[in-house]
């Protein structure tokens, strides 16, 4: 085992599933879970029809890699670059975050640390996604200021976080793994009041395709 292997949430035993910190909350909300790529993932909820308001989806299983080194202009500040279904996000002069499936980084001249379990994430989507976020986040999410692909590190629910505008009315928020239960409660409170609810990753895909 290399020195940093133990950081990756890839079990040595295939029978051990990695779990989101929001799993129990999802179960309480009626989620159906399935094992996907070594994770126990909420794939659907029974009454998820929030196309006119806002939905939120636990996407903590997304792989996250931290790159450190001399980053070039192909990773501009303030923008998340989409490459092969993966978001490449430059955070500082020498640090970037890669979010999504694990890309092949072996040829890249950066130091790579698996930080999947450092950041939990939720995807918030729907016509009222911005309104929902406005209940607990002071980032300026107007499309003129935060267009699709924008990357916004900032305060989310009074915690350090990062926001990616993935598409129109769709935002990915990343926050500390240990704050997940709290962030879920904040999002559920805000979105629920707007008539929204949780969706599983399969339902999120359907919403995106609609």
């Amino acid at each position, binding site marked *: *085992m290399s*020195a*940093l*292997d*133990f*950081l*990756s*949430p*890839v*079990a*040595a*035993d295939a*029978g*051990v*599933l*990695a*779990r*989101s*910190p929001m799993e*129990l909350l999802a179960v309480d909300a009626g989620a159906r879970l399935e094992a996907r790529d070594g*994770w126990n993932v909420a794939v659907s909820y029974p009454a998820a029809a929030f196309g006119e308001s806002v939905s939120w989806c636990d996407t*903590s299983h997304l792989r996250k890699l*931290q790159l*450190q080194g001399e980053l070039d202009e192909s990773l501009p500040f303030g923008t998340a670059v989409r490459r092969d279904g993966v978001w490449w996000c430059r955070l500082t002069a*020498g640090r970037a975050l890669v979010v999504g499936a694990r890309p092949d980084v072996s040829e890249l001249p950066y*130091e790579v*640390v698996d*930080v*999947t*379990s*450092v*950041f939990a994430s939720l995807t918030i989507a729907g016509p009222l996604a911005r*309104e929902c976020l*406005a*209940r*607990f*986040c*002071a980032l*300026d*999410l*107007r499309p*003129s*200021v935060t267009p699709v692909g924008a990357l916004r590190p900032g305060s989310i*629910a*009074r*915690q350090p976080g990062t926001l990616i505008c993935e598409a129109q009315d769709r935002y990915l928020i990343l926050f*500390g*793994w*240990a*704050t*997940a*239960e*709290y962030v879920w*409660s*904040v999002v559920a*409170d*805000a979105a629920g*009041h707007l008539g929204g609810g949780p969706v599983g990753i399969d339902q999120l895909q359907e919403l995106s395709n609609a």
Partner: protein
Amino acid sequence: MSRLAPQPGERIDRSKQISFTFDGKRVTALEGDTVGSALYAAGQRTFSRSFKYHRRRGLMCVAGQCPNCICSVDGAPGARACTEPAREGIVVEHVNAEPSLEHDVMRITDIAGGPFTPPGFYYKTFIRPRKLWPLYEKVLRNVAGLGKLRKEQPEREWRTEYRRRHADVLVVGGGIAGRAAAAAAAGAGADVVLVDEGLAGQTGPLDGVELIAGGSALGSFDGLVPVWQGDTLHQIRAAKLVFATGTIEQPLVFAGNDLPGVMLSGGALRLAQNYAVLPGRRAVIATTTDRGLVAAQALRTAGVEIVAVCDLRPEVNELGSELRRAGVPVFAGHTVIEARGRTGVQTAVIAALNPSFATDEHEFDCDLVLMSGGATPATSLLLQAGARTEYDERRGHFAISELPAGVFAAGDVAGVSGDETVARSGELAGLRAAHELGFGDADARGRLQVLETAPAAEDKAVAVAPPVAGSGRGKCFACFCEDVTSKDIGLSIDEGYDSIELSKRYTTVTMGPCQGRMCQLQSVRLMAQHNGTSLADVGVTTARPPWVSVPMGILGGRPVEPAKRSSIHARHRALGATVKWAGDWRRAYDYGDPAGEALAVNRAAGLIDVSTLGKLLVRGADAGAFLDRLYPNRFSDLKTGRIRYGVISSDAGRIVDDGTICRLDDETYYVTTTSSGAGAVEEWFGWWLADWKMDVRLTDLTQGMAAVNLAGPRAREIMSAVCDIDCSADTFKYLDGKLGTVAGVKALVLRIGFVGEVGYEIHCPAAFGEPVWDALMEAGEPHGLKPFGLEPQRILRLQKLHILVGQDTDSESTPFAAAMPWIVKLDKEQDFIGKWALRHYAEQPESIALVGFTMSNGDVPTEGAVVLGEDGSPAGQVTSSRHSPVLERTIGMAWVPAALARDGARITISDVGRQLVAEIQTRPFYDPDGELLRS
């Protein structure tokens, strides 16, 4: 019910009747009424009792600006009847009067209480004899205040929201100027929010503008304008701010000016025009501008007999002449000097003021006195946004003289009058704001130029109201909220409070619910008159938020509390753990039996969740050298797979944090810190790295890694059952760190411990925290494994005399005084943080030392109890103390004079009135030589 015929633009729906109660009596209203308009229509004239004197007060402004109609609605105090919408079934009650509005016993303060309640009376009366203060306080608290809160409110009854909104342009004020500004800015392409206190039906939508109707801007905080609307606090951040907040009609100061039936001319007009309520039958009107004359005409049309109009201006203008032609006596150069009556106005006396004494008096029987002392711009929000004002002698008020960049004033507040001019000024402000942000096409820019060069409208003549008229005829109120009279202002100046800020604080003028709307200008005039200075010299008080009274619940927002939880937290809850705060983490303190849990660790095995530990990855060619600079001991010589304890010192050589460091490979170190110090250490490391620019990368893994500590005589067997690492004593030695698989999960296992037993600390990704915990609990069950929490951990580490940074140490504690001289490697060639100071400390004897102590009589001193020196004076303190179940005695740590820091020495502890004797022990109480730990 005195309702007029339908009025153009009236707000009531005559086809829909509703009812509510006022002080238990049913009141019939029409939909669209306010509580105030409905009550007035039903004949109610006394709406409240004043703050100090408990004088009758009636509707005055009918715009939510004065305090005269404050009431309680459905148990919530602080509502203004004149703006509170009437709704079916609401329960409205008076405030500040006992036993009733009509008969208030506290009226005695008006009749006879004068000598006892001068300005600042609470500094002079009710303070002797001192021992009676508790009684005075109880009485005063019961009689003070405007309304009562319910004592019992077990749950939040009302959902309040925060809503953040960014905008290009925020316009505050939805009148002619504000709407023009919003429309112009939106037309140019800006993202515009318009806030208006009026309701949606009154203000109406505008294309491209988000309208927040019924919203009150509370203040201006460096570009952030919070707006309260119903249940929501909108936190609006705009690049440009346009304030079109209008003006506030001003009352006049004369004897009896607070009687029910004395109203602002605009208030009477609002009653008549908005709610079709006859404000009175016979009116005397006193004015300094055309406002009062316009009101006279309109009310005469509505059916009010205008018995006299006094216009303070020396000449009667065309409007006044019209009234004269209609048979209304108009007195130029006159004003009202007294209003008389018992429960309301019955007589008004007017006179010419020449210049400060009254001549040519006339008395009129009336039931309504309308006053219009000019209007003052509503500049509070502008001032909070950085604007400045100066006294305008011609207009008799403080006008905007300077605006900061990005802030615009439009309409009446900017000193512009006349509908057309006001609209143009709004359009100009809106276009300017948009233009500064780069919005607007060529047409918009052309229009902007036209507006900027348009001539200003001619000002109409105004008279400046006298500071007071009718002195000596009765109380002349400058401040209706706080019952401050013109005499009170003079008294405060005579007592030395001769600046407006001092007088304000002494008399409390402008500090009431109206926040100076009705009284700021009046108090400045009175001060200038009494001091013989100009109003410009007196100036105004500092404008502060909130501009309107706002419920605390609105400011509170949602009741959510940020908390960090370990990925294993659900297991602790399921096991019935007592969960408490430890910093910003929720942690298991115990599982119901802290002593038993501690004993289990010493007798069999225990498992604790230590996921809250700070965890930093330090990587790079210079990683070892970097750590050598940060710590007083060495890490560059640490072998791969080995662990060393470290203490971080500050520049001054004081203990900042502690933890362990494991070397994973040539360039990689895994650093742990205390839970509460994690953030600070990460910042510390990052800050120094930015300065030293070494080849090192830092990664904060604190939240990303779960960690559990398994300790006890059976720990080895349990560990061996769940992992693929050879845990034999010879192979996995104390302070070894190994990578392996635990419960099917890749993990870093550290052979460390702070509890005097064989221990393994397992670090794995947080996503696997639960399976690892479950596997260990299952494997440990046959061995008597128990989970243990923070409280038993504190007992166990105390048994080993392990310090808790921040509990046993403070900002002055050095490693030498804390009995850790071995951690300081002054022979390191590498310079390190704190070296200079530590070298100095090494050469000086310590005056104080951290030691252990023990007691066998069962007493457990309070943490923080004082250690007495030989002379009985305080010489140290107890930092930790517990009863040790395995040792069956009290153990603790304390700072003591260095001379006492020897085994067997006795110390006296003074603890909440008792004196305890303890014996010093400098070596760990349990496993003093570390044999168990290293076994």
